[in-house]
């Protein structure tokens, strides 16, 4: 079927405001979901599910979260890794029971171990709360200074999760193992189950993110991003807009951190969420497209697939290429692509995709 919106007249604002106003887009998305939920699990190899699709989905969720803050609200953050860590460690604490003696106050906080799902959601909430706290400086500072403040958050939490043994339940090695992934009696263990779990989370949160960015809140975020002074004169409270962006963003990044730790890694140490993770998410957002939910997926796919591609393709073609060269190549390609996109096309792959769709709509006529 041709990709056209001609002939699809919208008779109500409700139809025009739909998440995907063009019918072909809706069909494509429905097909994609059917394939992802019902076909991929049965045709993909165990390795592909576990080593490629699961991390792709989890980091896509993280990239969506970061994109809300950076791409939609225009607040730079270099601390995404820290918020993943907060999500992961909080979830861990909730699943194993929280005991916090507060001797000074003559009391203690004691929460019995919770099930995995509520723990993950609470992990997201903890990240959101910390996100709001670290978002407060953004009411005063912008750009480079805000970047440095979020960088400070990154180093601070790296330090906290290494030094404060309470978070890792005093394991001697400092590494932590996730408990069994029991969802109301359903134990998630195999690669297929892990994949479906991540897919469910990402689907739900991608829809939520899409809803938020096309509604009043999303417009407030973008208004702050594009022209904060005019936004305030329109009655948009910078306080509310920025802090909700920090909260929603940190919540989603926190959930992705919990999934990364519990579903992908299984056992982890603080290093899993260091500054490299922050940069990885930021690169995904820039390459995929600032201010685009679709772009978050494209960026995550590209960053994850590039090393695998460089590892396998020359090999298959019989070109000898050392592991070191590959990792250098990855840096070179990512770096130059980021420079190119930041200068030429800040909306990244998502924009290129939109241009392609535009061409397709007009095809075969040039105008």
């Amino acid at each position, binding site marked *: 079927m041709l990709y056209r919106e001609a002939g699809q007249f919208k008779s*109500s*604002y*409700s139809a025009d*405001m739909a*998440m995907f106003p063009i019918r072909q887009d809706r069909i494509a998305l429905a097909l994609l979901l059917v394939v992802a939920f019902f076909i991929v699990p049965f045709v993909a190899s165990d390795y592909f599910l576990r080593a490629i699709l699961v991390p792709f989905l989890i980091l896509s969720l993280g990239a969506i979260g970061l994109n809300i803050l950076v791409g939609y609200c225009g607040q730079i953050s270099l601390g995404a890794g820290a918020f993943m860590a907060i999500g992961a460690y909080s979830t861990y604490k909730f699943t194993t029971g929280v005991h916090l003696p507060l001797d000074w106050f003559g009391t203690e906080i004691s929460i019995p171990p919770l099930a995995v799902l509520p723990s993950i959601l609470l992990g997201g909430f903890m990240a959101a709360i910390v996100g709001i706290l670290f978002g407060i400086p953004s009411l005063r500072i912008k750009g480079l200074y805000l970047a440095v403040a979020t960088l400070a958050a990154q180093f601070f939490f790296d330090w906290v999760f290494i030094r404060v043994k309470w978070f890792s339940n005093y394991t001697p090695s400092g590494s932590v193992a996730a408990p069994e992934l029991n969802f109301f009696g359903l134990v998630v263990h195999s690669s297929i189950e892990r994949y479906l779990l991540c897919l469910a989370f990402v689907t739900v949160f991608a829809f*939520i993110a899409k*809803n*938020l960015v*096309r*509604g*009043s*809140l*999303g*417009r*407030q975020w*973008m*208004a702050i*991003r*594009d*022209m904060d*002074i*005019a*936004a*305030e*004169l*329109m*009655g*948009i*409270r*910078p306080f509310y807009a920025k802090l*909700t962006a920090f909260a*929603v963003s940190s919540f989603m990044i926190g959930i992705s951190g919990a999934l990364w730790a519990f579903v992908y890694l299984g056992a982890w140490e603080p290093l899993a969420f260091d500054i490299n993770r922050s940069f990885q998410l930021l690169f995904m957002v820039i390459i995929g497209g600032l*201010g685009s939910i679709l772009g978050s997926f494209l960026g995550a796919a590209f960053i994850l697939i590039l090393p695998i591609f460089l590892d396998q393709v020359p090999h298959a073609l019989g070109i000898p290429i050392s592991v070191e060269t590959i990792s250098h190549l990855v840096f070179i390609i990512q770096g130059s692509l980021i420079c190119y996109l930041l200068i030429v096309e800040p909306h990244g792959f998502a924009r290129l995709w939109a241009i392609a769709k535009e061409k397709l709509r007009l095809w075969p006529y040039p105008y």
Partner: protein
Amino acid sequence: MKADVDPKATMTGDVEPGQVMLSVENVSLSFGGVKAIRGVSFDIRKGEIRAIIGPNGAGKTSMLNVINGFYHPQEGVITFKGRRRSAMRPYIAASQGIARTFQNVALFKGMSTLDNIMTGRTLKMKRGLLSHALHFGPAKSEEIRHREAVEHIIDFLEIAHIRKAPVGKLPYGLQKRVELGRALAMEPELLLLDEPMAGMNLEEKQDMSRFILTVKDTFNTTIVIIEHDMGVVMDLSDRVVVLDYGQKIADGTPAEVQSNQAVIDAYLGVAH
């Protein structure tokens, strides 16, 4: 000034047509050593079009920034709808019914015409984060309701054809129109227009004048307009205040102001 304001109006916040809606008394504003406004007083009556004119750097834009809470004057009193105003954040002025456009278009460049104008509805939209997240029921019907209001504005300003276009790429004249739409979407009581016709050709100026007059007539909006084109000022405004070097040099009907010697001197650049 107090005598001008009906005490009942103070309580309800309503001002009868023709009465003083906002008064500026003895306001001075300086930036470091630069005195942008020096002891200026004037008032704005409900339902009128009040022009502010004066040479470049006279302090006109600064005066609008004072009125909508963006700058806080070092001296002077501002009374809005019978209530003395304290230093406030601009979004509070917005919530009290003051909207504005900017001398240098200040649209949200990454957003479409429709979304830009929809931001003007922000204060009227009450649904919270969770109901937006699901875009269901109340959040959706609220969005549809405001979309309808915005579509009326789009039709009125004759910009339906650029509804979905990103505003950054629109020609300047249309950007000014979208900016007016964004301010109108707030359904303001007091609309501040900072050189809405700067850089426009004759035809565009006529369109814009027509829009401004229609807004005044149909919604009873009080309008303050900064404009350089004396022809436009004569056609549109009920009363004119003239600023020069931060001081008020004249205040009256367009005809009075035009024949005022101080004004003629200021415009002809007679040495001070």
